[in-house]
Structure formats: C-alpha cells, structure tokens
C-alpha cells in the first residue's frame, strides 16, 4: 500500500515537473522575446527594456525557470503587466468561482449518472434501458455552451427562476450556489450522459463474469448480485472516467463562465490573452494543469481503496 502511494506520488511530481517545463517553454521560449511580444510592435524600446528587466529576461533560461517554479511553490505567481497587481491576488479571487463550479458539476453528473447507469444495466433491453440510452445519446451530442444558452433562455429569461448571470460572492452561500446552479447543470448533463453509458457497459461486463454466476449459485437474486458484487467491481473503470471528466468540467467551466458572466478564471484568461499578458496566462494554465494532475492522483488513491489487488501488489 505504502509502495503504491509512493509510486503514484513520484509520478505526480514527475508529471508536475514536466508540465511546468512544457508550459514555461511554450510561453517564455517559443515567442523569442516575450517582453517585445507582450508589448506589440509599436512599443518603445525603453518600455520593452523595463519589462525585460522586470521579467528577469536577462537571466539564463534555467534561472528564470527555477525562479518561476520556486515562486509558484511559495505562492508568488509574479506581477501582472496589464493589471499591475500580483497574479496570485487575481487568481485567488477567481478560483473560488471556477473550482466550486467544476466540483458542483462533478457531483451533479455523478448523482445523475450512477442511478441511471445502474438502472439501465439492471433492466437491460427493457423500456427503461432504451429510454435512458436514448436520452444519453442526445446528452452526449449536446454542446454544453449551447445547452447553457438554452437554459438561460428558458429558466432565466422566460421563467425567471434564476438570474441570467453574475455572481453575488460567497458571503451568501445560498445565493452563490443558486447562481452556480444553471452553469453546473449545463456542464453536468452532457458529462452525466457519458458517465451513465460507461457505468452501464461496465456493469454489463461485470454481470457476465464468473463470480456473478457463483454469487447466483449461493442464492443471491439477480438484483442482490448486481448490488453486492457487480457495482463495486464496475467502479474501477468508472473512476478513470470521473478523473478525466474533472479536467473537462474545469476547462468547460471556463467557457460556460462566459455565458453566465461569472467572474472566474475564464474571464481572466481570455482578457489576458487579448492583452497579451503572458505572465497571467502562464500561471493560470499551470494552475489548471496542476488541479487536473492532483485530481488524477486522488483517483489513483481511490482505485486502491476499491481494488485490493492494487494494495498488495508491491
């Protein structure tokens, strides 16, 4: 068990290191002179020189990379060129919109998909199965940002159950959650459709296994065998998908934020791209990638909780 966790931890650190190198290379090495790039063609040479000095571009690449990484570790994400404030401050305001949105959507997606997938598998070929599979076929095909627009049209503009956008802040948790609800639904339903399909096919695979037949020979009913033996085994492939989905929910959230005028990382990153503020782009991207890698690490740990073969296998 310890060996397994240590193994995953090592690969977590390696992944983070390589990811940071890739991001650093794309942002700071490929453009040649990032300072000149950020300021555009009309910039005065002395402005460029000032930015070069501030970004430490006269240092060798290695030093700059190490400075950036050690800064990240200390929570120092650098100074935004356009906002003239520390990037860390910019991010800390916005992450509390983007991250809760992704988690909210993940929870919604899971609590919709699990019962739907299990129900469909237990009624294989029946009317319930056909209906659920038809619905997921539609869900998989709906672009989430378009779905969000439709939700706004119906529930905000016509029915007026929700406000069409904006975020009141976490001072009032209920209002905050309410304003994240439509965006979370828009994100969650298409993912839930995928997850339900995976859950169903994984369960059907398990129901064909020998150990289900053994359980039936012990006197378990079809339903008991499904719940007591198939579900936990079926979770193993499902967990993988949940881990992957988190990165899509986080990235998808960045798009959905645009529709609901949510002050999350999405707005920050698109404004920074148009302002060519590479310092902000670099750190936000690193933060997103960091979150995704961390979630996959947690999924790996969850595997070990579900599957004893991983715990004892060296």
């Amino acid at each position, binding site marked *: 068990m*310890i*060996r397994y966790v*240590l193994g995953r931890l090592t690969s977590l650190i390696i992944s983070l290191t390589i990811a940071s190198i890739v991001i650093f290379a794309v942002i700071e090495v490929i453009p040649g002179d990032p300072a000149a790039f950020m300021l555009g063609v009309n910039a005065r040479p002395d402005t460029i020189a000032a930015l070069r000095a501030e970004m430490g571009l006269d240092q060798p690449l290695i030093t700059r990379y190490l400075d950036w990484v050690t800064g990240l570790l200390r929570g120092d994400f650098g100074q935004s060129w356009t906002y003239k404030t520390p990037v860390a401050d910019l991010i800390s305001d916005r992450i509390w919109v983007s991250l809760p949105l992704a988690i909210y959507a993940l929870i919604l997606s899971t609590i919709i998909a699990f019962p739907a997938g299990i129900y469909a598998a237990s009624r294989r070929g029946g009317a319930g199965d056909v209906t659920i599979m038809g619905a997921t076929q539609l869900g998989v095909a709906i672009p989430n940002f378009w779905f969000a627009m439709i939700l706004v049209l119906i529930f905000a503009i016509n029915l007026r159950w929700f406000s069409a956008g904006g975020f009141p802040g976490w001072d009032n948790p209920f209002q905050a959650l309410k304003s994240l609800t439509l965006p979370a639904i828009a994100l969650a339903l298409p993912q839930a459709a995928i997850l339900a399909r995976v859950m169903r096919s994984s369960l059907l695979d398990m129901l064909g*296994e*020998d*150990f289900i*037949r*053994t*359980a*039936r*020979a*012990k*006197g*378990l*009913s079809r339903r*008991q065998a499904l719940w*007591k*033996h198939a579900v*936990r*085994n079926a979770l193993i492939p499902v967990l993988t998908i949940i881990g992957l989905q988190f990165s899509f929910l986080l990235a998808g959230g960045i798009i959905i934020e645009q529709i609901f005028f949510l002050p999350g990382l999405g707005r920050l990153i698109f404004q920074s791209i148009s302002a060519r503020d590479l310092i902000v782009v670099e750190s936000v991207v690193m933060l997103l990638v960091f979150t995704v890698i961390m979630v996959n690490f947690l999924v790996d740990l969850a595997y070990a909780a*579900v*599957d*004893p*073969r991983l715990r*004892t*296998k*060296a």
Partner: protein
Amino acid sequence: MSLLAIKDLSLSIGDTQILHDIDLTMQAGEIVAITGESGSGKSMTALAIMGLLPHGSAPKGAITLDGIDILATSEPDLCKMRGNTMGMVFQEPMTALNPVQTIGDQVAETILIHEKTSKIEAHKRAAAMLERVGLKVSPTRYPHELSGGQRQRVVIAMAIALRPKLLIADEPTTALDVTTQARILDLLRDLVREFDMGLLLITHDLAVVADVADQIVVMQQGRVVETGQTHDLFANMRHPYTKALFEASSHEVQLPVRTASAQLVYAKHIVREYPMPRQTLLGPRPQFRALDDVSFHINHGERVGLVGESGCGKSTLTRAILGLEDVQGGEITLDGAPVFTGKRPNLAVRRKMQVVFQDPYSSFNPRHRVDRLITEPFHLLKTLPTGQARADAIAKALVDVGLSPADADKYIHEFSGGQRQRIAIARALIIEPELIIFDEAVSALDVSVRAQVLDLIADLCRKRPLAYLFISHDLSVVRTVTDRVLVMQAGKIVEQGETETVFTDPQHPYTQTLIAAAPKLPTLGMAV
C-alpha cells in the same frame, strides 16, 4: 424417495435443441458422474438443476430435487434453495471469486443470505468451514493472494457452508494440476461421506469418473446414451459411444522404432531468472529462478516428453529452446549452433525448429487465410517459394495432416478445434524442421479428437525422422508418444530416462507422487 430425479428433461434455446429426454436418478450420499465430450449437454443439465439456465431457455419435463419440482418453482423460491438445498462448484477457480471481497466475506455471505444470524456468527461459521475444506490461510485474505487449488477450496466452502443436500461440481478439477486434483477429489469424497449429501460430478475425464463415481451417466449430443453403476458399466459397456470414449481415453499409438542417432539439441546448465517485486521499499529485487541448472539433450529423430505441473518452468524452457529469450547461465545449442543470437535471430537455426501450441483458438490470426497462415514459416527461408512451388508445398502440408488442398482458401473460423490443431501441425511441418515442440498440443481437445491427433503424430514419425519435445501435464499421453521423458519440478529436471522405465519404476519422490496422483482408467472388462 430419491434425492434427485430428472424425468424426460428437454431443453431448447431459440431454435436449437440442447437436451433430449434426459433421465437421471440419484440418492443421498451417492456420487454420480455425468461424462461426455464438449457439446454433450452435461453442463446445461447441471445449470437446469440449479435453475440457472441462460436467458431464452425453454426446459420441458421434470427435475425433482428433495420432493420439489425445480422447473415449476418461482425465481424467489429458487433463490432460497440455491446455496441452501443445492450448491454448485465451477470449473475456473481463478475467476469464480469476487476479486474485491475477502474470502471470509464471500463464504459468510452464503450463510447471511439464507439465515437470520449475526455477522459475527456467520464469519465464525465461515472460518470453520474454510478450515474444514483444508484451507490454511486467514479468512481476511483476498482471492488474488491464493493459488488455484486454494481458491477452489473457497468455492467449495461457499457451496457447502449450509450443508446442502445436493452438491453439483462442474469440471471442478479440470483447471488444476494433477496433484491438486487428487486432493480436491479426496476432499469432495470426504464431504459426501460426512454430510451425507449427493454429489453430481460433471467431468470429461473418464479416469476421474472411474476413480470416484458410484454411478455413471454418459452423454452425447444432448442425450443420455448409457447409465449404470460404475462397476457394472466398466465391466459391461453396451453403447458403442461409451466404448469409443473409453478406447479414446486410453488410446495408445505405435511409434516406429528409433535408431541411434547424433545429438540435435544440447542444453547445458541453463539458468533463467526473473526479477520479482521488491519485498521492502528500497531493498534488492529478489529473483525468481524459473530454470535452475537444467541440462538435457534431444537426439535426431528422438521423441522426448516433458512433464511437470503449472509453474514448473515448462513454458520458460520452451521459449529458451526456441531462442525467443536469452538465459542467464549455460547455453542451448541446436546442431552445435547457439539458439539465441541476440536481437537478430539466426535463421539457419530457427529454420530447424517449429512449435504447436495448446489453444487451437488463439494459435491463428483470424484475419488471414489458411494458405497465408501455414506458409508463415517460409519467412525463415533464404528464398521464398512462389507460384506453383508454393501451391504445391501448401497442398502437400495440408494433405500430410489429413486435410484437403482446397482448405487453403478458407479462414480459420471455418474449422473445428481438432482441424485447427492439424493446421497448426501443417504450419510446423511446411519447412520440414528437425525439431517440433508440442506445447500441450492435445490438452484442449476432446478425447476422441485427441486420439486422432496422436495417431497423426505417430503417422508423421513413420513418414520421416522427426524429433519432438512433447510437453504435457497428461502422463498417459506422454507415456504413449515418447521414447524418453524429462520430469520437471520448480525449475529443475528431477528425473529423466527411458519413458517406460520412468513410468514403471520412478526414482524421484516427485515423480512417484505425480504418477500416484494421476487418476487411472481400469483395464477394459475388469472390475474396478
């Protein structure tokens, strides 16, 4: 009243008739064996008794177990009977257990599902039952930590935890080694005595049947062709199929006499180790010694057998001889040249060897036609035969193994298991190698087909001098098709010698155990 009475049982799935008018009666404390080849309907009969027939099955007739008609019983009531009145043990112990639950939990579940009792009490009884079936590991272990034989004991414990009146065992020892098989059969026999239950044993192996059954039911293509007390049935077989089955099971071939010849394969002190997972966090990786100082030789035209149980190093040795993997110590030569030459195989050596595998279903690329499949060894030749020469070679190879030249254009899925093994032999023969390795080549076949393939091998030996290494766990087969035999245990060759000498007068204790554990067929017409 009899424990189990099956009357006129017929079964169809869709438009296919699986079982025809099955009749069977057994008493408590009796061991009844259903035997027959694949497709005889023996497993379906067992599933019908359990009420676990696949979807779309339409059974007719009556199955009366302990006074209850199974076919007329509702599914909820059947659930109450399964595990309680009747239990079942399956063939494949490796997949029969839930991998994410402890074995104690799985045995206790049988008790908890049928009786109102506390979890603690159920686990106590489960532990006792695991001990009763001879399992010496803690109930908190998971299935993947156990060997096949141990897992089969867990499955048995699950099936008999509530002392059912009838235990059905479907090929319970087929996936196990011969010594493990003997111990599991002993256990089943003891349990029948102790609990006074009926045991319905389903097996393809006549020798097992002869060893343990009180009554034998022979099935063929969904029909019962012969029934009788074991003693009477063996003494006086009436149905031609029973006779044929018996003859095929103890089939012996006539090998041509071998003349003295020079050495072909020579292996000297070979050692092969595999690294294992570390025991401690940063400790050294322990090495698993799969081949431990193995030395032997095979002469030109000599037929050598290799016996041993799973994990003894047979497959590793095969790969080493074929030059697919290097060894850490010693060397293997063929006609004086080393078989392993690094990344670039020495085609001159490879050309002299071919192999036939166990599983006729995984031995061929399903996307290629037979002509392409059997000409694959041409890759080893300096110049590839083309046009007429190629067509002639294909036709000859197919005719040699008893197939028709027209079969060259077919895909492999059009052939039966026995025909596929013939095609595998044709593939091995097409470049006329000096040595063929038969790696459990007849183990997956039904006895009648196995007998035919063995005849084919003997026939080929008569046509041309052929040396082979015949690897098998089946001692009776090795005995009839080899001149000399090697006995392997835990990576070592513990005994080797002339086949007849080794079998009649084994020297090493392991060889003695193996021979004693192998179930034997009675000689025809003699009392058991």
